[in-house]
């Protein structure tokens, strides 16, 4: 079956530092990868969507300068949170899909900023 491994599961970083999270798709080709953030007590906000052969599209309030994303092949994607501050804490989720299939989500990376 389709699986997405996301790591790390949990991370703590000091305010102003950066952290990187990765997702690995297994059993399918991740032609599209979406990165979401769930802030405390909130729903999932789309950060950006990466589709092969297209530029990475960032949603309003999120920028490449703050959340650079790499999607170098059909099985891997990473996202970095640069200069993390308190408001960046939450659960970061990657979702991958092949064509018109359902999204398969990773287990999430919970970011705590101290």
């Amino acid at each position, binding site marked *: 079956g389709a699986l997405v491994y996301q790591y790390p599961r949990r991370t703590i970083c000091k305010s102003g530092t950066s952290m990187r999270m990765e997702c690995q798709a297994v059993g399918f080709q991740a032609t599209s990868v*979406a990165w979401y953030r769930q802030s405390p007590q909130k*729903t*999932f906000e789309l950060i950006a969507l990466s589709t092969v052969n297209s530029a990475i599209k960032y949603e309003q309030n999120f920028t490449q300068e703050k959340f650079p994303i790499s999607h170098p092949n059909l099985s891997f994607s990473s996202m970095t949170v640069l200069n993390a501050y308190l408001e960046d804490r939450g659960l970061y989720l990657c979702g991958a899909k092949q064509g018109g299939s359902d999204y398969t989500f990773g287990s999430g990376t919970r970011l705590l900023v101290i």
Partner: protein
Amino acid sequence: QQQVRQSPQSLTVWEGETAILNCSYEDSTFDYFPWYHQFPGESPALLIAIRPVSNKKEDGRFTIFFNKREKKFSLHIADSQPGDSATYFCAASAESNYQLIWGSGTKLIIKP
């Protein structure tokens, strides 16, 4: 503006009752409507989904009712069990852009 509205914010029902969660949307290009559940500390998992070609989708105790004209869809959980207690999210997407827009979530508590 793309938006998916979800209600209620929280819902408590007794074991064995039917829990009903509601969502509505605005963008008529949406053509895929999944429901996810999320247990504390975990990522969301797909529960059931529907496309506009039908107005009802069943999977065991879970049923989606879809009303294209009113742009509404709901999740009915029949014979609810304490293990169904979780936060449920509806979502919507359009095949053309692959974006998944999430509802705000419903925290469901099933009392034994």
